[in-house]
């Protein structure tokens, strides 16, 4: 079961976890991304490409389900303006055994960062700035190439 959501509503981990756990597998792995409170960032605004973003996330989830024989994959990404401590993204994977769930979860967040059309803008006391991509994210995504 694949579920992809891109929405401005706050992410609730309890509801997200319950939804992926309903896949009825032996193990659940999850990743939760949180707006960092460091670097003097007062707010974070996420922009996306409606339609293309959801399609990219579904494609990633389908690839993960096929590669690791998952019973479920869930990606929920928030967009719009967020504050430090707010949840940006939730990734959950369900499989019969932990190895598949853990690897697939890491695959999804690594590849999401380089393949899904989202853009982060930080609000600082002195103004706003678009976040530049990090080379370490490219390296993390590349390790899943087959």
């Amino acid at each position, binding site marked *: 079961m694949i579920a992809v959501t891109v929405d401005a509503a706050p992410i609730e981990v309890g509801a997200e976890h319950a939804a992926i756990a309903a896949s009825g597998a032996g193990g659940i792995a999850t990743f939760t991304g949180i707006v960092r409170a460091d670097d003097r960032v007062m707010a974070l605004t996420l922009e996306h490409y409606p339609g293309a973003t959801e399609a990219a996330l579904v494609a990633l989830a389908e690839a993960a389900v096929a590669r690791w024989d998952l019973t479920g994959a869930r990606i929920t990404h928030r967009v719009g303006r967020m504050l430090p401590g707010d949840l940006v993204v939730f990734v959950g994977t369900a499989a019969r055994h932990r190895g598949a769930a853990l690897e697939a979860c890491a695959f999804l967040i690594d590849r999401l960062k380089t393949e899904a059309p989202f853009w982060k803008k930080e609000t600082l006391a002195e103004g706003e700035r*678009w976040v530049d991509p990090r080379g370490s994210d490219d390296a993390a995504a590349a390790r899943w190439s087959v």
Partner: protein
Amino acid sequence: MATEILYFAWVREKIGVGAETLDLPDGLATVADLVAWLAGRSDGHAEAFAEPARLRAAVDQVFVPLEASLGRPREIAIFPPVTGG
């Protein structure tokens, strides 16, 4: 045939709009050719497209390199490298 051109993040901000519907001239073979043509539309376009190496593109929502053939798409998006997650 009119083509929808979409801009995101700082590309959108420099150009000042998120979308334009344009009739593309003949002779634009690649996405890079389109970007070069768009750069002539205004100072904002010129600034947004000054460094093509900083740009990414999608043709009909399929992500492609700038050297990709343009074809006759309904929708083209031009944007910076993505930074989600």
